[in-house]
């Protein structure tokens, strides 16, 4: 999120695409509705469903699942054709624009209508609304990402904001509302198979950096791996780890997966859940660490499983990073309840027994504060170095001193700082960066240019044109010693750069000279390392439009995609829609969270929302001879099958089925409640929507495509 929830108060228009904030982030609505009412800012909601957020909108755009990229490229084209683009912003701070413009030109309102189902006149209308009401705050969530072209869709969102000149401005920005309470913090720490903490990646340099932070020999870490080559290779992901067990698709690893830790995570938010279950049953060891048994305990039916009762988040302390990049200290409210241990203690007991405690805890004596300090020492790429535990706690204790409009403290002990010191927070004195890429303020006061990350010059393959990637002359933050673009800082301390200089002298020098440690560059429209260098539409793997598969086919199959063969072209079958004629999409409801382990064990929430259902348009229901409230079977092309209650509603159109994904503890019409330890089953069990979500994974990130699959519906 480049701006903050509070900053949306300053928007002049808002567009939400694949976000149902009213249910998924309800409290954010007070800022959104403030902009709507006080600024008269129109709300545009683009979604396959008429969501509760759509009910608050000025313009609801019903889009066919998976066609977001075509719509956004269409908006970009319409903005350019009418001359509404921000010419100065593009000339000085954007690269690859002419190449992108050429691609966007394909997506005329009429082409967009054919792909997305959105009337051409509505695409024209929305483009004009955005152009006439700047800045626009653009928000997306999983509806924008969970597609096999999710990485292209999200880039198209960013390019739209660049073309409109809405980046680095209060009231503008790309404001992705993150899901879990600390998904931003956990992402920043890269609990991810392709990077070490703070997005350093897996290169030798990255490992050497973190070994210096950990104060251990690089060779020691090398010795822990099978061979050095595995240190640099992306691991399995949450989306497809189970293939490491089942090997239905070929794996690129010397051993199958035999053991699994599930530490604070439910598995029923995984697509292809029937395969996940099969894999769990086949493991030699499955360890669940969680306050609740989770749906894993019910779905796994073999003897290989251990449940370790961890304390809840309120029974331990530590920092959490909100969607606005604010870091808050979650104080412990009470001690772990009887029999439970907090996560830190469980980790310590495990590491002690595995024999690497001395190396692992070398700098960590006081928990969790010394861990925060180790993060402060090493996570320089994203400026996690200025938020010491003492400063975070000070903000928490003085949260009442921060202004709602600016999030800046007005007097008091945090005077002038931004709430939660949103990263990057470069030094112990830095106030945090409330809006990314904002060149109206000095870097020392929370301003930033675009990062120089991809070299100084690039030549585009599609045009042969060479372009300087640094910002134009004269474009910089106030007080910058260099008046214009400049590369990232290095060799201030010889042999290091701003990311690897543990003395942090490089960062201080840059700030002292009024400059950003990471340089001042242009934002790219062309990503030369991606298969689609400029975002284009590709039909969902399982498409209801065989005619469009021919025009907009998917990618070639990808071997060794995070260690597993991943099907694209060989999976895209134009005949599939004949047997599975309806589009299946999923989402959240306000009463539950994620896989629902916590909320379905909460007596209040269980009473409010006790039952799994599928939203079906009355026209479709009547055509199929189904009655509202009757049970129906939903079946997926992969053989997944669940029995759920039909809920007739015009929220969905007559080609689309919607299901919430929070339920678990039932499978193919049978309750698995008896599989939980006695007395610990959640109050509410239900079929998992993800038994029916389809095969399909993003070409870059491997995010699962749960929003645009196919299914069949029949009376149960």
């Amino acid at each position, binding site marked *: 999120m480049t701006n903050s929830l509070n900053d949306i108060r300053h928007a002049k228009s808002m567009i939400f695409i694949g976000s149902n904030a009213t249910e998924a982030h309800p409290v954010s609505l007070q800022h959104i509705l403030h902009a709507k009412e006080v600024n008269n800012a129109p709300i545009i909601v683009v979604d396959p469903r008429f969501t509760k957020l759509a009910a608050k909108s000025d313009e609801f755009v019903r889009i066919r699942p998976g066609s977001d990229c075509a719509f956004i490229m269409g908006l970009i084209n319409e903005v350019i054709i009418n001359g509404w683009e921000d010419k100065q912003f593009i000339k000085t701070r954007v690269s690859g624009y002419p190449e992108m413009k050429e691609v966007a030109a394909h997506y005329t309102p009429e082409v967009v209508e054919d792909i997305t189902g959105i009337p051409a006149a509505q695409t024209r209308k929305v483009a004009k609304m955005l152009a006439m009401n700047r800045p626009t705050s653009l928000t997306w969530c999983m509806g924008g990402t969970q597609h096999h072209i999710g990485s292209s869709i999200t880039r198209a969102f960013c390019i739209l904001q660049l073309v409109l000149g809405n980046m680095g401005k209060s009231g503008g920005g790309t404001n992705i509302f993150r899901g879990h309470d600390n998904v931003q913090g956990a992402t920043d*720490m890269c609990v991810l198979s392709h990077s070490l903490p703070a997005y350093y990646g897996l290169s030798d340099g990255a490992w050497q950096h973190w070994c210096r932070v950990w104060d251990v020999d690089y060779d020691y870490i090398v010795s*822990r791996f099978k061979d050095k080559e595995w240190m640099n290779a992306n691991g399995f992901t949450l989306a497809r780890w189970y293939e490491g067990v089942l090997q239905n698709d070929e794996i690129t690893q010397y051993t199958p997966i035999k053991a699994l830790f599930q530490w604070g995570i439910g598995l029923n*938010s995984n697509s292809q859940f029937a395969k996940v279950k099969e894999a769990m049953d086949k493991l030699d060891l499955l360890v669940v660490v969680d306050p609740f048994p989770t749906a894993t305990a019910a779905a796994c039916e073999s003897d290989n499983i251990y449940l370790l009762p961890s304390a*809840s988040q309120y029974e331990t302390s530590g920092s959490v990073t909100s969607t606005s990049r604010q870091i808050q200290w979650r104080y412990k409210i009470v001690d772990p309840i009887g029999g439970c241990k907090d996560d830190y203690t469980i*980790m310590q007991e495990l590491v002690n027994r595995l024999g690497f405690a001395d190396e692992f805890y070398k700098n960590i004596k006081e928990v969790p504060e010394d861990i925060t300090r180790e993060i402060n020492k090493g996570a320089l790429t994203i400026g996690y170095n200025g938020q010491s535990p003492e400063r975070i706690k000070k903000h928490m204790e003085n949260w009442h001193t921060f202004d709602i409009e600016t999030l800046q403290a007005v007097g008091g002990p945090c005077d002038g700082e931004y709430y939660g010191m949103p990263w990057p927070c470069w030094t112990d004195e830095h106030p945090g960066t409330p809006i990314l890429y904002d060149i109206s303020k000095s870097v020392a006061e929370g301003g930033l240019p675009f990062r120089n990350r991809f070299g100084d010059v690039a030549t585009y393959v599609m045009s042969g044109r060479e372009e300087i990637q640094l910002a134009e002359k004269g474009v910089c933050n106030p007080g910058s010693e260099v008046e214009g673009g400049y590369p990232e800082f290095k060799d201030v301390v010889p042999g290091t750069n701003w990311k690897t200089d543990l003395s942090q002298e490089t960062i201080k020098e840059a700030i002292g000279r009024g400059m950003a440690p990471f340089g001042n560059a242009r934002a790219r429209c062309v990503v030369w390392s991606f298969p689609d260098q400029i975002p284009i539409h590709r039909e969902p793997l399982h498409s209801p439009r065989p005619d469009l598969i021919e025009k907009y086919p998917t990618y070639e199959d990808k071997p060794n995609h995070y260690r597993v063969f991943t099907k694209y072209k060989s999976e895209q079958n134009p005949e599939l829609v004949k047997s599975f004629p309806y589009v299946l999409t999923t989402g959240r409801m306000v009463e539950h*969270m994620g896989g629902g382990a916590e909320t379905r064990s909460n007596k209040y929430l269980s009473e409010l929302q006790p039952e799994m259902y599928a939203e079906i348009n009355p026209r479709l229901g009547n055509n199929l001879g189904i009655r509202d409230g009757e049970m129906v079977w939903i079946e997926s092309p992969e053989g997944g099958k669940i029995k759920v209650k039909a809920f007739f509603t015009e929220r969905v159109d007559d080609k689309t089925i919607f299901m919430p994904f929070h339920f678990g503890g039932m499978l193919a019409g049978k309750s698995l409640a008896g599989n939980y330890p006695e007395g610990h089953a959640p109050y509410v069990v239900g079929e998992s929507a993800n038994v029916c979500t389809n095969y399909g994974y993003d070409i870059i990130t491997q995010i699962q495509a749960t929003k645009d699959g196919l299914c069949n519906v029949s009376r149960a």
Partner: protein
Amino acid sequence: MARKKISKTGVSSTARSRVTLNPKLARRSFLKLSAATAALSGAAMTAKMTGKANAAQAANDMYPDSQMVRSVCTHCAVGCGINAEVNNGVWVRQEVAADHPVSRGAYCCKGASAIDMVTSPQRLKSPMKRVNGKWQTLSWDQAMDEISAKLTEIRDTDGPDALHFNGSAKVSTEMAYLQRKFAAFWGSNNIDHQARI
């Protein structure tokens, strides 16, 4: 309409009714609180209304010897503030945080019922394992010994990449960092979490 209702049954009166495990009582106070929340997070929000639910007033209503602990809701990334009243080591009451700069006293139904994360009887209380299809409790030491022995055996026989570790977006940043560090010291990149999907 909403405004009138809040002044009668709003936050301050909820604060006087003790949160309890008695389902009837608890439900009643919960519903009151969520009615107030629904109105507060809706279009009718004014500064005057939020003024009614200020923390100072709640503090005056606290039990003797109680402490108010500031914390953060664990249900989504908005990061709403929580004021938790703790008495003799027990979380006795959840209060709105009207002066929190982001949430300004609002909760959704999940946030309003955060206390049940601690009080839910469905919580696990002991390590367990399944033996011949039946769950058995075991001590922490025994569980950790068995798990580490099995992990070591798998590591020795099949190599470190035979383990996959799914970590969490629901733990603290410090704990998330330890999860990633654990994988590094274990010797594998087979680690991931919810942000992937």
